[in-house]
């Protein structure tokens, strides 16, 4: 079986060539397969978020290549990368990055605005997702009126609204309470069962325990790949 995501010798340096140069990710190679539950595991500052940003096409690497469904996306234009973010990859940010002042359903349906989806359809799609994630009674609440766990579920719904095949979540347990972690794991498991590929970065042992494939990062370098019991 061919990997849907293949990373080859990937590096990302900030302030390259300057005295304050930071090598956030250094010479990483890995593969993720269809419908896999992959976890990037490591302590803070190990380069997990940077690597996820590169994989999620939110940033461009300094060196190396990323193949998504067999195509090298490191040379893609801005429009092509937007298409990937719109159709193939859904991203859940560590700090959720919801728009303040917009309701939950408006946040969820925001990616559909430039696609010309009518308001009623956008509302229905957002409502359906939010209900599925247990937020059916929070449709009109703005992010400020929601708890951390609820905000995260809104962010997940937004990432899923375009039916992406890959869901990327950056440190999903870092900004939510313990009760919400269980619910999050259920959601991620459910999505995997639906056939989605899940790539999560975390330093949380609970997330680590669910991994089918675990990539351990230390100081920007890949220190080990292990396959979990679910594999």
């Amino acid at each position: 079986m061919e990997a849907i995501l293949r990373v080859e010798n990937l590096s990302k340096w900030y302030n390259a060539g300057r005295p304050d140069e930071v090598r956030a990710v250094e010479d990483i190679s890995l593969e993720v397969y269809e419908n896999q539950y992959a976890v990037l595991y490591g302590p803070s500052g190990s380069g997990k978020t940077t690597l996820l940003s590169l994989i999620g096409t939110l940033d461009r690497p300094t060196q190396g290549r990323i193949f998504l469904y067999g195509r090298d996306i490191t040379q893609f234009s801005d429009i092509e990368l937007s298409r990937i973010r719109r159709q193939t990859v859904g991203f859940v940010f560590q700090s959720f990055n919801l728009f303040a002042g917009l309701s939950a359903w408006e946040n969820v349906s925001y990616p559909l605005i430039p696609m010309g989806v009518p308001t009623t359809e956008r509302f229905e799609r957002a409502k359906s997702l939010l209900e599925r994630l247990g937020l059916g009674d929070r449709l009109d609440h703005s992010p400020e009126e929601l708890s951390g766990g609820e905000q995260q579920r809104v962010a997940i719904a937004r990432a899923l609204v375009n039916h992406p095949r890959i869901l990327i979540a950056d440190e999903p347990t870092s900004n939510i309470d313990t009760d919400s972690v269980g619910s999050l794991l259920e959601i991620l498991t459910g999505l995997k069962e639906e056939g989605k590929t899940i790539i999560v970065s975390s330093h949380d042992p609970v997330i680590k325990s669910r991994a089918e494939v675990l990539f351990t990062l230390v100081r920007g370098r890949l220190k080990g790949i292990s396959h979990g019991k679910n594999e």
Partner: protein
Amino acid sequence: MDLPRTLIIKNLLFAACGDLIRHRGRSFVVTLCLVAILFPLVTALAISEGLRFQAEISIGEGADFYVSEDRYGGNGPISLDHQSRLSGLQGVSRVTPRVVGRTYFLDRLIAVVGLEPEALSGLKTLVQGRIPEAPGEVLLGQGIARAFKIQVGMPFSLGANPHKTFKVTGILSHSCLWSSDLMLMSHSDANEFFRIRGLSTQLLIYTLSDSSPLLAKSLIGRSDPGGSQVPHLRIEDRYHTKERVQAGFSHKGGIFIILYIIVATLAIQAFLITSGFGLRVMEREIGVMKAIGWRTSEMLGEIGMECLLISLTAISSAILLSMALTKGLNGIPIAQFFVAEVGLVPEVEIPSRYIPFHGLLGLALAFCITLSGGLWSAWRKAQRPPAELMR
């Protein structure tokens, strides 16, 4: 336009509305800045247009031709001997003399107009008092009457000809700009006052119908008995005068608009940039929008709509504010900057006229200002990777 494109535009428009409401503080300040810039522009244009319109009405209601004698290439007084000769021309219905001059009423420069009795009697409805009938009787404009507290029945004389005494029989009630500083009298009194007996500054020629003017002009020209010893006639027709008035207003208006736009654009840009209140779209939001699949062009489209909505709000507010000032408060205190010889509180009715072109011009100006502030900044940010913008 296919359906998805229409829907995309509609969606972007609604998103732009939502974003303006979400960032209401910033939207309010930017709109306020634009109104501050647009309000004087709209007011100035409206007053200028009002003046032009009044001038055109005056020309339209006036004579078809104004004939004077050519003196050193300029208009000179014309002999009243021409009146009977010109009256007999084909297509001419009436020829009437008019004296127009200027003099000082104490320290105030006023216009003096001398008309024939039948022309004066036509002003009956516009006069508080009565029309001059006897020699030395005059009508005064409201501006002079108010300034010097002159009432009907008061006698006076003027420095230009102290031997000639006048008596006020009426005040012109219509307080338009043209009649404010005006003294109207009989033609013979004006002749006496300016010491031009047997002469008139102009002969006003009225023709029979629309088809007559060109024919009449040609006949007037041919009937000119001017030789080497006698000055030629100078003939100005209504259309030529109207053209000159329009050109004059357009020229002045054009220069004003260009200078104002340059100054206003620089001022507002400087303010928006230095204060940080411009439509500088927040980096983080651009980063998030890109991260969830928005393309740069779509973001710029949405920001463009924000600019358009803000500009529409600003120009509408500026027009309403300007209307309230010009129609309700008679241009206090701004009229003095645009109309000569008008004080802080205008004594005369300040003419103003609002036409769609001024609204469109203001809208275009506001749109350019907001676009240059918002679109360029957003485009530059959108060139960077989303992760960098959200960091």
